[in-house]
Every structure is written in structure tokens, then in C-alpha cells.
């Protein structure tokens, strides 16, 4: 059994996908083992909620592994699965933004504090109290600064400087022009530099 696992560990993603397509269960588990941590980390840092990140990462794997037939081996498997994960995270963040969009605050809010807390906050990308709790787990100034970035900037900077992906690959994952990816990364780095400026003084 361990020999078989060692054999799979040495195989390329494409070889493992071919085995999985033939119905080889250990190949599926090997794909999960390879990508569960990087993929979960990306989604967790995007949505900043552990339970939600697990659900989104789970949905990503289920969607990808049930659609292996549609994966084209000439592309990197990692790019394909990261694309699915990023789309899931961005979709969720957009939905959440729409859900909380209310000029006068939530109709269920009864106290002035609650009304203020649920009112429309244009241009405020700051963290909610819940986000702050999650950020505590994510820990550190840099994690908090990442939480203040726009989701698009967040994806780009995480893929570039945490995952170490090339600009071209990020453009493929996010379905964006290369120039846009570069601009987003430069702006994200600039915003992080400003957010962390107090640490350098």
C-alpha cells in the first residue's frame, strides 16, 4: 500500500489524472493530498472564515474531481483547480457584498448601533467583527493587511507571492489579461507596503 502511495507521489499531475479517469480511487486521494492545503489556504485567506473556506474548498474538489473528463491535460492541473477555487471564493464574496447592500441598515436591526453596523458602507473594505475574529486565527499584521485588499488584488498577490505562481499562470487562473494581473499585483503590493509602513518606523 505504502509502495503504491510512493509510486503516486512520484507521478506527475497528468499521470495521476489519467489514473483517476480510469477509476483508480487512490489517484483521487493523491490529488486531494497534493492540493488540499494550498487550495484551502488560498480560499481561507480570500473569505477569512474557516468553516466557509472548508465548504468552498470541498465544493471545489467535488466539482473538479467529478469533471475530470473536461480537464485538458495540455494545461497545468494546478491552474485548473485554482481557477475553480478562486471563482468559488470570488462568487461568494460578490454575493455577500450584494446581501449586505442596504442603505438604511438591516430591517431586523433594532438598536441604533445595529442599524449603523448594517448600513451601507461605500468604499469601506474594513473587516467586520466576525472577520476580525477570523483574522486573529490568520494572525499577524500582514494577514490583516491582506484582508483589507480588494478580492481581485487579494487573489493576485496570494497566487504570486504566497503560491509563487508566474504572472502568465495567474492570468490564466484568473482569466485576466497579463497587464491587468501585473497592475493588480503592483497595486496590492503598494497597498500592503502602506498598510505595514508603521512597522518599519
Amino acid at each position: 500500500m505504502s509502495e503504491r502511495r510512493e509510486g503516486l507521489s512520484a507521478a506527475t499531475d497528468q499521470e495521476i489524472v489519467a489514473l483517476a479517469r480510469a477509476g483508480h480511487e487512490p489517484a483521487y486521494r493523491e490529488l486531494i493530498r497534493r492540493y488540499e492545503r494550498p487550495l484551502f489556504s488560498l480560499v481561507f485567506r480570500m473569505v477569512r472564515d474557516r468553516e466557509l473556506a472548508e465548504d468552498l474548498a470541498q465544493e471545489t474538489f467535488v466539482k473538479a474531481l467529478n469533471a475530470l473528463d473536461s480537464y485538458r491535460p495540455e494545461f497545468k492541473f494546478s491552474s485548473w483547480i485554482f481557477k475553480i477555487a478562486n471563482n468559488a471564493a470570488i462568487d461568494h464574496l460578490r454575493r455577500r457584498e450584494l446581501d449586505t447592500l442596504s442603505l438604511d441598515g438591516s430591517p431586523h436591526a433594532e438598536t441604533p448601533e445595529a442599524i449603523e453596523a448594517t448600513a451601507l458602507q461605500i468604499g469601506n473594505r474594513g473587516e467586520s467583527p466576525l472577520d476580525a475574529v477570523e483574522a486573529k486565527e490568520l494572525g499577524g499584521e500582514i494577514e490583516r493587511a491582506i484582508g483589507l485588499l480588494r478580492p481581485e488584488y487579494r487573489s493576485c498577490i496570494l497566487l504570486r507571492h504566497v503560491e509563487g505562481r508566474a504572472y502568465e499562470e495567474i492570468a490564466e487562473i484568473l482569466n485576466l489579461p497579463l497587464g491587468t494581473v501585473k497592475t493588480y499585483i503592483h497595486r496590492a503590493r503598494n497597498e500592503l507596503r502602506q498598510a505595514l509602513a508603521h512597522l518599519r518606523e
Partner: protein
Amino acid sequence: MTRPADFHLSPDDIDALLANDARDHTHAHLTACADCASRYAAEREVVERLALLPLASPAPDFADRVMARVALPDPFALHALGGSRRKLFASRRGLAAAASVVLVLGAAMAASIVWSLGNRETLAAAGTWLGNEAVSWLWLAVRGAASNLMEQPWYDRARGLLGAPARVAAISAAASLAYLGGVLVLRRLMALPRTGVAHAHA
């Protein structure tokens, strides 16, 4: 291309510096311009902090929860041919090859039907001859196998063993038990993962 001394480094220049891929004039500018040196140092610090971020882990049963919702393909199912079919029709050459094969097969089938309709007696005679030949070959094979079996050194002992009804019953029972055990082991090995959909918990 050389950059005038009063220009600051562009984000692309900073990128190149961070990737250790900058040209000499960029390094030269960095040593001469305090603003750019400070900006580069700050960005390098950000990048180093990002690179040190640890990977987070999902719950330990994450893989099991995913696998519970994944439908493993049956390699013998017809829909498993879908991938090959897509690959075949992906290029013009594949499409032309597939069309040629279909054309040749169709023409061959049509020709054989036309010929069969015009030569029924010949077909009937050929069928009778083939049937007779098959029966005689089969009989020959059975006789050969039986005589081979009887020439084996263990044949008499095996015959004696099966001679007593009690022995036959004991051997049958042992074989049935072994078969049942095999089926149970196979069922356990091929059991599907549990189907419940679990939700993530911290």
C-alpha cells in the same frame, strides 16, 4: 534602453529586482536614488513576509468528505468512451479517419447484404458445412482433453477420493465455504465510501 537619472524605478523594475532579474542600470539607479531604495526595501519586506505565511490545513477528515461526494467512473461503462470520442473528433484528421472507417464499414455491410440475398443456396451449404466441421472439432477436443486427464498420475487417486459420497459432500462444503468467504472479502474491498454529505467543521 537607458533611463534618465531623474526618473524613478517603475513597478516593472521593482518586479525585476524582486525576482533577481534586474539589469545593471536598475541596480545603478537604486544605489543613487534614496527614494527608490527605500521603496524597494519596503516592497521586498512585504514580499518576504508573504512568502513566510504558513499553509493552513483543513479538518483531518476533509479528504473523506470530498471522496464521499465524488462519483468514481466505471471504466467499462459506455459513457467512459466519451473522452476518446472527444479526442477523436477534436482534429480534422481524426474526424476524416473516423468518417473513412464508417464509410468502409457501411459499404462492406451493404455489399455483404446484397451478396447474401443473391446467393442463399451457397450460404445455406456453407452454413451446414461449417456446423458439421465445428461439431467434429469440438468432439475431437473433448476426447483429447479426456484422454489427457486420464493419463495424469493423480487421476486414479482423485477418482478414488470422489468415489465416496461423504468425501464428495465434505469437499463440496469446503469449496462452498471458500467461495462464500471470497465473495465477502471482495464485497468489503469494493465497498463504496459512505454517501452522507458532511459539512465543514473547524
